[in-house]
């Protein structure tokens, strides 16, 4: 399934780009993160706890940052698995200037397996939107903190 959307931020895109790829920022911004480690340049391993309905569980995952083109775009290759199944996602993030702030466009092709897949669009889309929303809220806070 495809998950896509856009989000407005107050700060400039250089700052946003930096924050979005800072392991410490990510570790604090991603919901339910228990561990987020850089295991090699641009490669991270993490443990996340998701507490929503049938996809509740602890997931271990790998994230690889590719095709970095600061401050405009980058690509993420994400793999995660836990008891309720797993996902693989290929995501592209584009940042563009808009007024004084930045507009982020994101598009991810998500392949799921196990219970997660069987729940399909009925639940996964909603859970993803919820988690992404929490993530953006936290990033927004950090942007504002830096600007202050």
């Amino acid at each position: 399934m495809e998950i896509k959307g856009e989000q407005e931020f107050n700060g400039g895109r250089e700052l946003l780009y930096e924050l979005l790829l800072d392991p410490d920022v990510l570790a604090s911004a991603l919901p339910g993160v228990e561990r987020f480690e850089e295991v090699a340049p641009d490669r991270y391993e993490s443990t996340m706890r998701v507490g929503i309905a049938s996809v509740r569980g602890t997931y271990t995952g790998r994230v690889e940052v590719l095709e970095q083109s600061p401050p405009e775009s980058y690509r993420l290759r994400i793999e995660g698995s836990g008891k309720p199944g797993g996902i693989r996602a290929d995501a592209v993030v584009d940042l563009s200037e808009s007024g004084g702030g930045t507009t982020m466009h994101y598009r991810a092709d998500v392949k799921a397996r196990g219970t997660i897949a069987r729940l399909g669009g009925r639940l996964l889309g909603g859970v993803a939107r919820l988690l992404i929303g929490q993530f953006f809220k936290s990033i927004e806070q950090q942007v504002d903190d830096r600007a202050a």
Partner: protein
Amino acid sequence: MTIADGPALPKLIGERVKRREDPRLIQGQATYVDDIKLPGMLHLAFKRSDIAHGVIKSIDTSAAAEMEGVELVITGAELAEHLGPMPIGTPFPAPDHFSVATDKVRYVGEPVAVVVAEDRYLARDAADAIEVEYEELPAVVDPEVAMEPGSATLHEGFERNIAVESYWGGTGVNPETAQPEDDSAVDAAFEEADVLVTQRMLNQRLAPNAMEPRGVVAQYETGREYLTVWSATQNPHILRTLVAAMMGLGEHQVRAVAPEVGGGFGCKINIYGEEYVAAALSRLAGAPVKWIEDRTEAFLTTTHGRDLLGYIDLAAKSDGTITGLKARIIADIGAYEVLLTAMIPTLTGLMMNGVYRLPVVRHELTEVFTNKTPTDAYRGAGRPEGLYFLERAVDMLARELDMDPAEIRRKNFVPADEFPFATQSGLVYDSGNYEPCLDKALEVADWQGMLAERDAARAEGRIVGVGLSFYVEVCGLGPSAVVPTGGWEHSGVTVERGGKVTATTGASPHGQGNETTFAQMLADHFSIPLEDITILHGDTSVVKQGIGTFGSRSQAVGGAALISAAGKAGDKMKQFAAALMTDQEVSPEDLVFEDGRIQVEGAPEVSKTFAEVADFAYVPVPLPPGMEPGVSEESFFEPENNTYPFGCHISMVEIDRETGEPRLLKMVAVDDCGNVINPLIVDGQVHGGLAQGIGQAMFEEVVYDEDGQPVTASFMDYVMPRAADLPAFELDNTVTPTPVNPLGAKGVGEAGTIGSTPCVVNAAVDALAPFGVTHIEMPLRPERLWRLIQENGGQS
């Protein structure tokens, strides 16, 4: 001399006797597999693949094995040292299929490892702790793409994923050469036709969804070297044969038991990997083991049904006479061939002659492997698919010619005086009389009134249509020539001391009500009360031999065996009775069973009670010359042919103009299953069948995404028909007995699923015909119907 003054006993055959099974089943007093608890019993859980297609690179069982209470963790490769590939019951070539995958997985849900633990929950947790690494392969999901060169393949040696290919045409296969006859006549018929119908149709994949999921308990007794397997199966005797073979045991070392079984619908014919694994692991672990399927596992791993794609062509004259049929069928059989997988789609072509005289037929069948759950029998098993294709096509022809759907069928019926009738596919229909059945259905439904009602509704701006279908199907499977396990059935009848009767049947029921119908038959045969009769089934240590329950064979084959054994037991009772009445010079041939007595026909004063004679049989002093004590007889019945019941279904469907939601307003079924033992049970079978047939037409569909991930693996996503979706069914019947068994009974288990599906779709197409619609794919989803309305601008 005593004459018992018992009450006159009414004849029970043909009466609506309530099912004797039901009180215990609905009061929680019945024993299903999950109710079986043995001392020291361990529990199995399966680690299953969550990808559709891939190579197993590694399996790490260490974390699972270390958990407290886990007795054993075993991978497919390790288990293969104890269990070989699973046997199948068809003569077609098949790839190796292990109970637990050894090197590759080919569908989501395929087991890769097994845990044996102290309780069910621990076993599940341990299975979750097993880590499997796969190298993923492209999933093969669309059967037509699967056949293209260059597509990923599931099995070595099965190029383009093709499992089975068959072809016959013209006037069928020449029995001498087994080659297709010259079929230029088919091409000629289509060239000369006044009118042609051409349609691609999908008969979609369904999940059988028995109320009770599968389950097995296995107990291997070391020292005794004896295995007992309790399983939710339709055929314990076949289970015994196959599990013995897989375990390297003789049939004398295996007892298979089907306790109460909560529905099967064909999906419990197959003997599954879990049954073999339970047997093998009980021997390995030295303890009884249990596995009970959960509902998600049922959706993922219990065989699916249907999934046939048909390219159907009909040729006809302008007066409606059908002159030819061409059918190209592609069967999506899933990842493996299990017990009857490859045979099921062959029944589709065999039965596509329907109730019509078809001068020429061409039939092509390709069975294709895909990365999906394997298919096997599901209520009707091949016949609903064929009759759906045919009855949809005939309906399209009627529409093309602006003929009444009843009249175009009447015009093409096989006439009553042509039975037994040989079809183009090589079958011989035993008996049939279609016109009275059609007339009765039209009368019961008030067809003319329905047409007027539809037209009046349309005038009000409502979207309403009427549909009709006429099916013939094949029941009473046998004979042995066509059933790989043997096509007979076995029964035993014992008259006990005190004149009570115990009978056994190999037709192991799972909802058919044999304990009632078979007792009705024996009650009438011996003229004793129903309460004096017990019918035992489902346990190979009690029922000496048997085949099982599928293809509506309980009554037509199992009932015939019962009556044959009862005849032998009755003869012996009469001999003992005559011996008791030597002073009256009575000959056994003069005796009849009447109201609990054995009496000289027409002379009740010359009689002995049934109980007296039974007591004498076990203490025969003096033993009549040439006789052995006791009355316990058995019989194998081998039918000479299948039976071919038929029927006419009529329905009315309304579609909401704004939402596209369909509503079934009326459902009439007039079925002919030959002689009826218990009309109440026949009605029950028709009710259930109609619900499932309507379920296919309107609601049900197993859906996979493009990666082979099933997205309909719960009742939230797979829509089952509910009572509120169904109108009160209007049932009636005609009676055309079969000559192939002494009962004249044909079978009725599948009837409802065969006639109703095309009937309801025909009604939906009729409803949308004013919008230019000529065909609608199943299920009749509101969205699909709404789009068809919108494509025409919402205007009829």
